[in-house]
């Protein structure tokens, strides 16, 4: 699907593409594609959740409004290979990390302000039915990916001189997994693990995270294989999870029938949520692919 560098027409160097090796240019484009798609999917999830929450606070509109703009800039960047929109995408991705940080704090406050907050044993109950604790961290992760896909070579060079990009991505994957795992864990616990498949991400994601973390500190070939397997499994979990969540919607009263669908979509298993794992896994795979290409 990607042409060899030698087959491509020479392109005008931009701040986005200039100064990078062809491999790095390709990787950054792929990351822009993945970030954009993930951001768009997360918007669907975010819109559903904040709509379900009745937009009780005006702050809840911020990510809903901001995300399409970020995704649009990302799409332009991805489609043009970085010749258009990259600077704006980078700026918006930076803003997204700020929005996500504020969101994360507000979500914790939302949980801690619920009745029974002074009883530590009620914390889990409040987390189950309060704002999703770690969801904004997925936003944060995507913001960081947007920044990585657009950062100028001059700013990136000092870091990349010390740590190669694929190892950075392994560390990034490893860091993304704990909050993702925590969120999946406590929400699947709310569902009482009624379907044994709900254990799958809970049991295997930490393994994938640990493999990515270990691979981040090694240049060995086995590290490359481990990181590839971890990212591949993470992506596969996302695909399987989406399938199971769509099946879960069908099991609710009314299932996909027109009169029931919106209610079930809002209150059933979040169908777009597992796709974040697909994004994370594909980003990791893209980085490993870049290594194998040298």
């Amino acid at each position: 699907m990607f042409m060899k560098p030698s087959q491509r027409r020479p392109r005008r160097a931009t701040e986005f593409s200039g100064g990078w090796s062809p491999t790095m240019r390709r990787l950054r484009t792929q990351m822009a594609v993945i970030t954009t798609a993930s951001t768009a999917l997360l918007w669907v999830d975010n819109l559903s959740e904040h709509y379900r929450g009745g937009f009780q606070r005006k702050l809840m509109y911020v990510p809903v409004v901001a995300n399409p703009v970020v995704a649009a800039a990302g799409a332009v960047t991805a489609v043009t290979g970085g010749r258009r929109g990259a600077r704006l995408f980078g700026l918006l991705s930076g803003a997204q990390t700020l929005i996500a940080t504020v969101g994360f704090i507000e979500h914790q406050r939302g949980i801690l302000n619920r009745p029974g907050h002074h009883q530590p044993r009620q914390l889990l109950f409040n987390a189950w039915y309060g704002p999703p604790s770690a969801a904004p961290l997925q936003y944060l992760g995507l913001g960081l990916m947007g920044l990585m896909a657009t950062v100028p070579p001059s700013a990136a060079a000092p870091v990349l001189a010390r740590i190669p990009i694929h190892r950075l991505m392994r560390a990034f994957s490893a860091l993304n997994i704990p909050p993702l795992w925590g969120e999946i864990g406590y929400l699947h616990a709310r569902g009482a693990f009624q379907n044994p498949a709900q254990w799958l991400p809970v049991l295997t994601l930490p393994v994938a995270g640990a493999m990515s973390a270990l691979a981040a500190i090694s240049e060995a070939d086995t590290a490359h294989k481990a990181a590839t397997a971890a990212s591949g499994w993470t992506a596969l979990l996302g695909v399987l999870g989406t399938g199971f969540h769509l099946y879960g919607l069908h099991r609710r009263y009314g299932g996909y029938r027109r009169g029931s669908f919106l209610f079930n979509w809002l209150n059933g298993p979040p169908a777009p949520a597992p796709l974040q794992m697909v994004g994370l896994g594909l980003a990791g795979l893209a980085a490993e692919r870049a290594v194998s290409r040298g």
Partner: protein
Amino acid sequence: MTSHDEVDAVVVGVGAAGAVLVRKLADAGWRVVGLDAGPHWDPQTDFLSDERAMSKLFWRDRRVTGGDDPIELAGNVTGKGVGGSTVHYSMYALRLHRSDFETRTRDGVGSDWPLSYEDLEPYYDEVERELGIAGPVDWPWDAPRRHRYPYRPHQLNGVGEVMARGCDALGITWRPGAIATLSAPKGDRPPCVYRGWCLSGCTTNAKSSTLVTYAEEAVHAGADIRPHCMVHRVDTDATGRAIGVTYFRRSADGTVHEERQRARVVIVSAYSIETPRLLLMSASSRYPDGLANSSGLVGKGLMIHGSDIVFGRFPEPVSQFKAPPPNTITQDFYETDAANDFVRGYSIETVGPLPGKFAQLAASTLGLWGESLREFMYDYSHYAGLGLVGETQAQDGNGVRLSPDETDTFGLPIPVVTFSYADDDRRLLDAGADTQRRILEAAGAEVTFRVSDTAHLMGACRMGNDPVTSVVDRNCRAWDVRGLYICDGSVFVTSGAANPSLTIQAIAARTADQLIAAGRRHEL
């Protein structure tokens, strides 16, 4: 008269206990017949979002109620149809406390049960698992549980938030209630969609009534459940052994036929009014005072729960109609406290009457009618109600007997039910209502009002270790009549301060196991 071939067991009443018995015995390979006086409902076609229409779920045959504090009998304390009152009950699925089984020893009141909590504990676990009870992660009252609830708790509804806020302000421990409606799918049953029509029959099958759980599984296991069969006599042979039942069967065209079902074991599970009524109606020359009544205790010792509700009006809408009414609970006041002027205690739980019921309660309590009631009902959504489950003590003066001169449509003598609170019961009720009011006021209620109400029936054929002071033994076997078992809420010795359905079901599950084991030993 049609006479059916002998089966292994016939169960009279396919409700909370009967459905459990029928399913478990059928699973064990028994040939079982379940007879129920009402219909075999189909929730998707028979249940409506219509409060008045759904009063068809209640047992509305003629009964006489009396005593100093007559209880309402045509409402939610009983049910008619397969599933019994679990079809319309409020779904709190609570265990009795360990102390409930030994109130005589601990507090000097009532009688000790012949069973302990530990005897029932595995059956509580079993029934909770089968029904998919959704409950809190920890249960801070009584001794710790061995297992977590199988499903996670439901979210707080408006009334639950009010109660939680009030309890937090007063330092009272609260938890989301343990309730029999699914919070996640179970088999082909979907999770609750929070319509809030639970007390009018659940149309989605999320509610774990025995209609859609045990009874449905029993049919798949090969049990024969016959609706519209009003049993009016337990038959005995010349040796005095129970050999079957005789009943009136109403056909679809309205005609009534008398039929007989012979069985090796007869199990009466018709609850605290119809069970003693049936035993008393089965009097014969051998048993002139009624079956299993050598102690004279059949129909005596009926208990209820004092269930006064305190409503509070809030400036913001509470939407009390939304989501299952059973939502939040405290049992901080369950046990005897030396500081009180009464023994034993109470639970406080959220309630959420639909507009019709709320209007009825307000009209009868506040004397509202016409324009004043209409004005009052504009604020329906602003009210939150907390209900009491207050323990009452068994008194022989409270109970069920047969009317000497009034009969029902089948020509059977109707039951006369008598109930009066003891002074201790009244003091407990007043203390409970005061706590309810304080919680509501601490949550910000502008005004409150108290509604007198009762809930649940227990006792009237109590179990025990002595044939002189009880009707059945610890395995629910009638002391006097071989082949006869009584298994429902009527065998309760004390009422506890918890909704009784789960204990009824646990006793039924245990009785089924005892029967199966006895059958294997050829000791039936």
